[in-house]
């Protein structure tokens, strides 16, 4: 049996998505900029995707710009807004648990003379709203917070942050990375007071190589690059039409049955959590329980074992997961998210993230619940570190 539980990293392309894309690689290959029918057919398809995605956010069609991925969208949003609003201020606020695609651009901006504050989070990963209020000053131009933390599934108080920023005397742009929350948690850019939002297609059963940035009308932002402007003034160049079509189709599928997909994932999530708690001793659930946790995320630290070994043993059993262990990264440090919520490094090294999609089944969870306890037990047997000592 196989069980793919790393949907937070990437997902399989839905059959309907592939079918929608294929004609745009073959007979409908036109360039959207050109007036002949082949070109206009491609332009119509791109606009349709743009509209579909805008509707899922309660945004205007023109406010969606396609990018190569969410990383590019995050970088574009943060540096684009920072550079365009340098005269109004040089202060940015984000959190300690953001994705590197938010943190790295912030570090680059710091080198350019911007001041960046990184909000603390509590033991479940929630940002400190009081600290945010205190840090906001007349030089603050941008706040960037992910709606759902991609590692531990914490749903941040986006509505409250949006409201707080709206109440300020001057304009503070609000960027939200929604790569981990899109199609999992409800989004409404109007109700949430969001100015910029990053999305990714390949995390919702769309193709890799396409993402999007929602940019509210009238936002001061520098274009991502310069060149021949076609459909997207902020990102010039020939559009990746087949991928954009696939992204639109993936969004259409995800939102056509949003509530039932979410309910399905939530049930599997709770089954997995209950099963692990029942079968495996010496564990810690990272992130919150219940309504404030992404329906698609489960993250446990298994004390006394090392994450990469767990990951590879699960892989030998056909189960794909992710780990917050140092050994799986290029930095050899445990996950910065787990560190920020106060998980001790020796415990963080044994963290495993399971992420769900609408395609996962209860049978797969049963299988995972059969394999995981066995793998953890066998690795604990050969470990010189006793879980009860951690």
């Amino acid at each position: 049996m196989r069980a793919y539980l790393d949907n937070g990293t990437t997902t399989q392309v839905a059959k309907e998505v592939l079918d929608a894309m294929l004609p745009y690689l073959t007979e409908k290959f036109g360039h959207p900029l050109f007036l002949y029918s082949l070109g206009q057919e491609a332009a119509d398809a791109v606009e349709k995707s743009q509209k579909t995605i805008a509707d899922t956010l309660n945004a205007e069609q023109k406010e969606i710009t396609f990018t190569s991925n969410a990383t590019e969208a995050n970088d574009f949003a943060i540096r684009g807004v920072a550079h365009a609003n340098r005269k109004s201020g040089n202060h940015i606020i984000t959190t300690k648990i953001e994705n590197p695609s938010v943190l790295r651009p912030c570090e680059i901006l710091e080198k350019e003379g911007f001041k960046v504050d990184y909000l603390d989070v509590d033991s479940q990963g929630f940002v400190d709203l009081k600290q945010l209020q205190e840090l906001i000053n007349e030089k603050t131009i941008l706040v960037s917070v992910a709606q759902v933390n991609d590692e531990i599934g914490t749903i941040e108080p986006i509505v409250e942050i949006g409201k707080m920023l709206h109440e300020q005397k001057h304009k503070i742009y609000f960027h939200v990375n929604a790569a981990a929350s899109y199609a999992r948690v409800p989004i409404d850019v109007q109700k949430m007071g969001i100015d910029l939002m990053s999305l990714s297609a390949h995390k919702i059963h769309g193709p890799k190589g396409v993402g999007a940035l929602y940019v509210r009308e009238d936002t001061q932002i520098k274009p991502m690059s310069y060149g021949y402007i076609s459909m997207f003034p902020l990102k010039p160049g020939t559009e990746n039409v087949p991928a954009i079509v696939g992204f639109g189709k993936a969004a259409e599928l995800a939102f056509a049955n949003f509530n039932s997909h979410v309910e399905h994932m939530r049930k599997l999530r709770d089954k997995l959590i209950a099963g692990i708690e029942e079968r495996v001793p010496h564990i810690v659930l990272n992130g919150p329980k219940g309504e404030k946790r992404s329906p698609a995320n489960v993250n446990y630290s298994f004390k006394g074992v090392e994450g990469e070994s767990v990951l590879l043993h699960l892989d030998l059993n056909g189960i794909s997961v992710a780990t917050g262990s140092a050994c799986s990264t290029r930095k050899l440090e445990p996950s910065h998210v787990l560190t920020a919520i106060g998980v001790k490094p020796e415990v963080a090294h044994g963290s495993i993230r399971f992420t769900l999609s609408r395609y996962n089944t209860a049978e797969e969870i049963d299988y995972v619940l059969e394999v995981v306890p066995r793998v953890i037990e066998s690795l604990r047997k050969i470990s010189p570190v006793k879980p009860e000592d951690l």
Partner: protein
Amino acid sequence: MPVEFTERSLLKYTQKVLELFKDPKNIGEMEDPTVSAVEGDPQCGDMLKMFLKIKNDKIVDAKFLSFGCAANIAACSMTTEMVKGKTVDEAEKITIKQIADNLGGLPGLKMHCAVLAYRTLKRALQEYRKKVNSGARVG
């Protein structure tokens, strides 16, 4: 600053490493070892404990416990295989490079795993020398 391109080999394991990870040799606790040594730190994500049984200056058995990644398990598995049957003098000559080479190489980022296995072995052998020099009955 010139560009630094990424090498996939930084994270990719050889067949040998995966083999030893799946089916490690000499893993488990040893009943009455002549010496044992612990190196590494769970805080850093890897820790090894090695047990040696030595008779007449010859290593007759070697076992280990691991809190670590696949490279850690494979490197210590290999090291214990390498020392079995060797005299203490011979075992002292084993190098980090020999351990890594016998694994068909380790990804750049995982070389420290061979280093840790090597250090644990060194520490165990030092313990043995100390024991012998102090006049304790060994082996």
